[in-house]
C-alpha cells in the first residue's frame, strides 16, 4: 500500500465548489532512465486516476511518463449529497489503490 496524502473537506454547503488535493507515493519510473551502469529501468507508472462521488465519476486523469514521481493532483467538485469520495489509482504491474473520504453536505 503506497502512502497517500489527501486533502478533502469533511463538510460542504450544498452547491459549493470545493477543492480536493491528492498525492500518492509512487516512483513513476519513466522507462527512459539509464542508471550509472547504463541499464534502463522498465516503465512503471500510474496510468489512471479516478475520483468518484457516491460511485459517480466526477474527475479522471490519464497519467503519462511525463508526470513526476509522487503525482500530485488538484481538482474541484460540486457538493451535492452527503456521501463518500473515492480515489482510485491504477497503473503498471497491477498497481491499484483506492482511498475513500466521507463528505457531509448540509
Amino acid at each position, binding site marked *: 500500500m503506497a*502512502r497517500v*496524502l*489527501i*486533502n478533502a473537506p469533511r463538510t460542504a454547503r450544498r452547491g459549493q465548489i470545493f477543492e480536493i*488535493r491528492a*498525492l500518492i*507515493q509512487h516512483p513513476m519510473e519513466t522507462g527512459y532512465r539509464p542508471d550509472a551502469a547504463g541499464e534502463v529501468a522498465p516503465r512503471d507508472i500510474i496510468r489512471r486516476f479516478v475520483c468518484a462521488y457516491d460511485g459517480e465519476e466526477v474527475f479522471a486523469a490519464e497519467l503519462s511518463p511525463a508526470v513526476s514521481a*509522487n503525482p*500530485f493532483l488538484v481538482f474541484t467538485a460540486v457538493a451535492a449529497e452527503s456521501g463518500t469520495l473515492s480515489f482510485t489509482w491504477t497503473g503498471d504491474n497491477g498497481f491499484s489503490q483506492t482511498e475513500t473520504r466521507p463528505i457531509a453536505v448540509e
Partner: protein
Amino acid sequence: MTGLGRILRRLGAGVAASVLGLSFVGADDARRTEKRSGFDDMSRETQAVQRDDTANPGMLWVGEGEALWNRKDGAAAPSCAECHGDAAVTMRGVAARHPAFDPATERPIGLEARINQCRRTHQGADALAWESQDLLAITAFVARYADHGR
C-alpha cells in the same frame, strides 16, 4: 599644541567614542535578539500553503519515518519509540541543534550520523546506508519537530 594637551584631547575623544560605541553595540544586540522568520511577513494565503502538510511530498517520508520510529527490529533491540517516546515531545528542536560537536568522537556530527550512532550503540543495529530511503525517512520524521511551536 603641547604634548599634555594632545594627550588630553585624545583621552577626551576616546571617552566620547567609547560612549558612542556602547550605544551602537546595544542597538546591534537588540537587532540580533529580535529574530523573526520570513513566515511572519508572508500573506495569509502563502502561510496557508506553507502549513498545508497534504500538499508537501516530504510528508510521505515523515509517514515512513514514523512507522520506522515505532518498528521493533527483533526482540532484544528497542525501537526508537521505546527510549524516546513521543517524538513530538522528545525530538522537538533537535534537528535545529545539529550538526553539533560530539564529545564521544570529538568530531562534528550531523543528524543522520547521530541517528546511525544511536542505532549502533543503543539498538545493536547496523547503521543505515547514506541517502537510503529508511535513513531519509527517520531523519525527516525527527526533523519534522525541529521548530518550537509552529
